């Protein structure tokens, strides 16, 4: 298959500065990129047995077809090593599974962006960080896989900010937002096993997500204590979740996970606790936040909206709490990620 079959080929002379050219074309996120030469793209494409012209989807609002080759070009641009490409491709396929949701996620004034979660043996083999400084810089696999998705969204689906991407404010995860689960430090089975896959398989999960909200609890020594703190941090007014539900990712630090599991709690116990405990009085939600926006409320019928004393669950069903373990081995800090726009979707990375 000819390289460039589905992409315009730009011809530059040796006097041209390829990096500056990429900036001039609006291909970057503001940071320098790796110029996507046909040779570099070919090396990336050689890691998979897929036709470069294969169409994975077409995300609105731009609606251009996302081909395997376009993903490869953006992976090069982001600085990915060739061996990361099957992971990037799988993340795009997760998003294609939710094609109908993507337009909203990419254009909303809300500012959410795809979060990529890595599970399984590729964490070690590709060098993803799952420990200290989770969500932060320092690891090429996390940084460039997340960036490849962000650049692809910008270049192929949403265009430049202010054009279709109308986020009032967003978060730094729009540059890159890729974490891995610290499976060896988790007292439970990994997240992708919860989703029906094998521990021996590697998986990518993608979800539309806010930035992580850090929660400190250095004092609690019991599951009740840690989860009461986390529930309180979830039960806040200024989220969509308080008014229309949705998923919440709980990224527990190894310390918090050990305390909770040490009391014999399973992930199911944690989910039910959050569902029951993370609630706000209806009267506190009325008239502020996202109340009645769009001319209607989105709470299910079983919530008694005639009584201001009704306790409204921020997570409408226990299974909407998604649990991961990640972060440094020491420290009573966990994170909450409210999700919106695209539900969590998991796929296996082919090996």
């Amino acid at each position, binding site marked *: 298959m000819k*390289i*460039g079959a*589905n*992409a*315009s*080929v*730009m*011809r*530059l*002379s*040796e*006097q041209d500065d*390829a990096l500056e*050219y*990429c900036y001039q*074309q*609006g*291909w970057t996120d503001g940071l320098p990129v790796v*110029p*996507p*030469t*046909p040779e570099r*793209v070919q090396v990336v494409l050689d890691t998979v047995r897929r036709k470069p012209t294969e*169409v994975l989807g*077409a995300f609105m609002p*731009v*609606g*251009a*077809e*996302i081909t395997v*080759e*376009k993903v490869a*070009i*953006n992976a090069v*641009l982001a600085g990915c090593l060739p061996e990361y490409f099957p992971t990037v491709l799988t993340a795009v396929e997760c998003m294609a599974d939710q094609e109908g949701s993507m337009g909203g996620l990419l254009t909303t*004034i809300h500012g959410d962006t795809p979060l990529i979660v890595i599970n399984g043996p590729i964490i070690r083999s590709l060098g993803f960080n799952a420990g200290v400084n989770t969500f932060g810089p320092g690891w090429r696999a996390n940084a460039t896989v997340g960036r490849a998705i962000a*650049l*692809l969204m910008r*270049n*192929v*689906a949403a265009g430049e900010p202010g054009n279709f991407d109308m986020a009032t404010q967003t978060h730094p995860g729009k540059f890159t937002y890729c974490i891995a689960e610290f499976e060896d430090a988790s007292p439970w089975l990994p997240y992708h096993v919860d989703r029906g896959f094998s521990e021996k398989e590697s998986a990518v999960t993608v979800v539309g997500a806010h930035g992580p909200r850090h929660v400190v609890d250095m004092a609690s020594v019991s599951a009740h204590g840690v989860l009461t703190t986390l529930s309180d941090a979830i039960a806040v007014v200024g989220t969509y979740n308080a008014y229309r539900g949705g998923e919440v990712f709980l990224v527990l630090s190894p310390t918090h996970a050990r305390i909770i599991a040490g009391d014999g709690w399973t992930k199911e116990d944690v989910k039910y606790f959050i569902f029951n405990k993370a609630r706000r009085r209806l009267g506190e939600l009325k008239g502020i936040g996202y109340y*009645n*926006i*769009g*001319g*209607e409320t989105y709470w299910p019928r079983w919530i008694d909206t005639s009584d201001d004393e009704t306790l409204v669950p921020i997570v409408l069903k226990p299974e909407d709490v998604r649990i991961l373990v990640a972060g440094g081995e020491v420290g009573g800090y966990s994170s909450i990620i409210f999700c919106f726009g695209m539900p969590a979707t998991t796929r296996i990375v082919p090996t």
Partner: protein
Amino acid sequence: MTKSKVVQEFLLLSPKGEGNLKETKMASRPSTLKGKTIAVINAFRNPQGSSGDLLSNYMKDLLLREGVSEVLPLRKKSSPTDMADDIIEYLNSKAQGVIILEGD
């Protein structure tokens, strides 16, 4: 003998979306608004809020100044929902043009 300098070139592949873009056919546009009946639909995210009404009233004044004979102000129930069938039927029978106002 003069040396000829060979200028080498190199190639880059565009990461931008291109090709096979979904086409949307635009409805035909009237050549003038003068004498027309135009519907102005408040499709703001919160149609009960004041921002949509402000813009709707402003648009109505502007259209009348431009010679529109009649402005039909309408309001969508909520922005995420489809336009109600009865509104579409009403527009088809009464309006010669439609302006949809969107915002927050």
